């Protein structure tokens, strides 16, 4: 079938990170991605994406600022009129690093915090970093670059939403993203520790609603609901192979950042195959493109062009079949899996993501 125009490229520059967040979506075997693309290889990927029509570049990881060549990659993309977004935990954004990135044309920075206060934040991150993040936030606010504060929500910090909003307000931040954890990678492994309760989610919605009313257009608050608590699945990536491309640190190319978990699909690497060929012709990107692959009940569903059958990775993780209807959908024959897990009483302490030892 004809491939649509991709709009967004996510480059996961490295999976290295000094934090140990238990909700990290990176693959459990992230050590297998040590052979990272070089600066020149990333620049080639960026150019090939621009030729395909991509307008937005998201630089993420792991922690992307661990790459010393980051500013060079930003500069290449800006020169191609791409909108460059850095997704970082901020602990290495000192004056020099930040100035270099802004000078290279960075348009937006997203800094994540784990919680609105140090003790809890550092406990979740598994290391003492909260204070450094605050300094990074202040630095970014002083420069001509847009900032979003992001906080991933889960059972341990979900009752602190009002404090997270107050935190953002104190800094005069215009954009706040409260994103409920999505269960991939380490988060999937820690799902019994991280799944919020229904009461938490309902309180959270109310707190966000009140804050939006109070703050008006002074702050944009995005509150991403956990799809387990909704009737229908999320429109994951706006459809497989529809708008998004992800490139993992070693050049492995995927329709979404979690798709490496789907072990039944062929691998393709941008080191070996041009990006256009991967996007247009690869078996991987065509596997669930459009609506032709859909099983019942998606096939005849009025919502098939709204949520695209939901998330392929979630379908695979829960049912073993990446081509199944996302079990988060109440119409899925496997929906009871989600119900059991969501409403289950099993709560485990979380296991931190294991930090890679120095060699």
């Amino acid at each position, binding site marked *: 079938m004809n491939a649509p125009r991709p709009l967004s490229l996510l480059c996961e520059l490295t999976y290295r990170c000094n934090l140990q967040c238990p909700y990290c979506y990176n693959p459990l075997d992230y050590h297998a991605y040590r052979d990272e693309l070089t600066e020149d290889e990333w620049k080639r990927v960026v150019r090939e994406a621009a030729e395909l029509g991509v*307008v937005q570049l998201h630089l993420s990881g792991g922690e992307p600022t661990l790459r010393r060549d980051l500013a060079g990659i930003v500069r290449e993309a800006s020169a191609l009129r791409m909108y460059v977004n850095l997704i970082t935990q901020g602990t290495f954004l000192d004056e020099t690093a930040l100035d270099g990135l802004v000078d290279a044309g960075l348009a937006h920075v997203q800094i994540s915090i784990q919680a609105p206060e140090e003790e809890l934040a550092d406990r979740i991150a598994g290391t003492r970093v909260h204070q450094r993040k605050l300094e990074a936030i202040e630095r970014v606010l002083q420069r001509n670059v847009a900032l979003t504060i992001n906080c991933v929500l889960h059972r341990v910090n979900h009752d602190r939403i009002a404090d997270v909003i107050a935190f953002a307000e104190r800094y005069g931040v215009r954009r706040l993203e409260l994103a409920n954890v999505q269960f991939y990678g380490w988060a999937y492994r820690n799902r019994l520790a991280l799944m919020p309760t229904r009461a938490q989610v309902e309180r959270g919605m109310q707190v966000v609603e009140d804050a939006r009313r109070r703050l008006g*257009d002074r702050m944009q608050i995005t509150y991403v609901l956990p799809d387990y608590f909704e009737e229908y699945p999320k429109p994951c990536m706006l459809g497989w192979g529809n708008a998004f491309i992800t490139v993992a640190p070693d050049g492995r190319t995927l329709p979404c950042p979690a798709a490496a978990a789907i072990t039944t699909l062929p691998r393709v690497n941008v080191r070996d195959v041009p990006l256009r060929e991967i996007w247009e012709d690869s078996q991987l990107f065509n596997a669930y493109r459009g609506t032709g692959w859909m099983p019942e009940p998606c096939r005849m569903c009025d919502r098939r062009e709204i949520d695209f059958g939901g998330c392929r990775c979630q379908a695979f993780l829960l049912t073993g079949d990446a081509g199944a209807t996302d079990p988060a959908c109440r119409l899925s024959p496997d929906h009871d899996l989600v119900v059991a897990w969501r409403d289950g009483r099993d709560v485990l302490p979380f296991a931190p993501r294991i930090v890679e030892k120095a060699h």
Partner: protein
Amino acid sequence: MIETERLCFARGVVLREEDEASLLLVPEGAIFLNGTAAAIANLIDGKRTFAEIVEVLSEQFSEERERVAADAREFIERLRASGVLA
């Protein structure tokens, strides 16, 4: 909306014009603009007020000022609600 206020895009919003499309690039994605929306977006420069933008548009499209103003107001209010304006 105050008609004498100068309209300006928020930090982190970029208007991108291509041969066959105009897009507003924002932190979480891209908004494709139709012809009228693109014409309005082009006039948001931090200097012009709403009234001035309407004036230019009504000349550009040879339309009545009131009609242009109604369309422009709706679009600009949507932009404001989604945090695209400063």
